[in-house]
């Protein structure tokens, strides 16, 4: 479903991604962990071409993202093509980024109508179902500012699902939440995983990575240090850097609920 091969990314002179290779199969949940500044967010943003890349290839659903190949060179696609590709990939942000001037319902129907060209009636019909699924049927008319962080993030998930994405990207979806609100968001994500949604989740929630993640990749300094089944990488890491990083989450291993301190 998602294949990342040899991806490099520079910001000015800093190379932030130094040759990333990752594969995510259909229906798989990949959890990306790693210290701050290791390039996790940048990698996610490359996957839906919110950032350009300097080298390498990213395929989603068998299609090269953002570029077409012409011999040795990669040529950036026209905007219309990029928009079409992005519509297949949902993204959930750390700070929710709900459209502040729109109600919950309007947030969810905006893109299906404006991008997909679905009729308003159909979009509303589908939105009712999605909003109910994330447990917010009673809040359809509310503006984002009136919702708790956990509620906003659940709306953001519904908004992403409304585009019927083939792949969902989560960038630290619970890092901006008060501890008591984390559970409700993770629960929605678990149910998506159970339904077979393909997901890439950047997270510091080790318990979630262990239970819901099929595989875990540990990133540090712009490279994937190690990747493998969650049970192996989290429980018996092979690399010293992974071990050192995980040591900070010892508490999480013991009681299964403690979270990383926010950075």
């Amino acid at each position, binding site marked *: 479903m998602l294949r990342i091969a040899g991806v490099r990314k520079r910001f000015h002179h800093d190379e932030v991604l130094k040759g990333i290779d990752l594969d995510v199969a259909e229906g798989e949940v990949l959890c990306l962990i790693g210290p701050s500044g290791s390039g996790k967010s940048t990698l996610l943003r490359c996957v*839906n071409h*919110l950032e350009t890349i300097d080298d390498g290839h990213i395929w989603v659903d068998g299609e090269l993202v953002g570029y077409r190949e012409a011999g040795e060179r990669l040529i950036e696609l026209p*905007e*219309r093509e990029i*928009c*079409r590709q*992005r*519509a297949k*990939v*949902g*993204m959930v*942000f750390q*700070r929710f*980024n*709900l*459209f*502040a*001037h729109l109600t919950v319902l309007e947030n969810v129907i*905006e*893109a299906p109508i*404006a*991008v*997909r060209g679905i009729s308003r009636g159909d979009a509303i019909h589908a939105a009712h179902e999605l909003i109910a699924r994330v447990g917010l049927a009673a809040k359809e008319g509310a*503006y*984002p*500012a*009136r919702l708790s962080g956990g509620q*906003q993030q659940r709306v*953001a998930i519904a*908004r*992403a699902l409304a*585009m019927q994405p083939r792949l969902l990207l989560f960038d630290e979806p619970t890092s901006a939440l008060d501890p008591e609100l984390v559970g409700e968001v993770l629960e929605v994500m678990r149910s998506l995983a159970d339904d077979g949604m393909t997901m890439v989740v950047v997270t510091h929630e080790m318990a979630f990575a262990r239970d819901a993640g099929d595989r875990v990749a540990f990133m540090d300094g712009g490279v994937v240090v190690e990747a493998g089944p969650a049970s192996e990488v989290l429980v018996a890491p092979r690399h010293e850097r992974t071990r050192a990083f995980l040591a900070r989450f010892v508490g999480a291993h013991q009681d299964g609920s403690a979270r990383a301190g926010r950075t």
Partner: protein
Amino acid sequence: MARVVARRRPWLWLASAIVVVACAALAVAIWRNPNIDHRIIARHQFAPAILHGLAVTVVLALLSAAIGAVLGVAFALMRLSPSAVLRGFAALYAWLFRGTPLLVQILFWGNLALLFQMLGPFRTNDVMTPFVASVVALGLNEGAYMSEIVRAGISAVDRGQYDAALALGMSRALAMRRIVLPQALAVIVPPAGNQFISLLKATSLVSVIAGGDLLTAAENISSANLRTIELMLVATFWYLVLTTLASLGQHVLERRLARAGAGLDAAN
């Protein structure tokens, strides 16, 4: 039970009394002034020539505001563009039109024929009538100020809103139009309203090129009957009517936006 007695404020009373007396004295001085002929004012307040000038002023202000709004958005987007050429051009525009007196700009457009006798196949004086020159001068000037206001409005919208819109598959133009600009509006409207009120008054400057506005009409009459003060008072009345209406409109619009976007800030 004790009765509450407010602290006495004799100085406040005294200051208020002085203000009232001073205003009354000024009003009487103007009203009883032998140099002001009230019949002249009454005769011209609703005279067809004055009302025509008033209409020209209103049309001038509305046209320039519309041009200014379009230019403002266009140049604001250019200033936020990745292209250094576009950014530079927009900065140059704002620098030039905000850095020179409006009066000079009006005189320049009004006397364009001295620079170019022809504009393409047309004679400059046929195209650049005083009214057209006025609209061009005011519109371009307004656009420079509006571009700063719009740019500030767009910058005030969290970058994440734009990212979220793009991530959903919206084009940059669609994201700007449907997501960013509606939110920027709440930040843009209050200063844009002040800008419009300034513009209403600035229209009077076009009288230097006989732009046909309210002040031009008043001056035409006063230069014939030599009743300068009376005709300035006639014009003053209408300017106050216009700016009062504009202030009321601004107030209503701000209230509406505040209600629609209740807590916009808290969301980000």
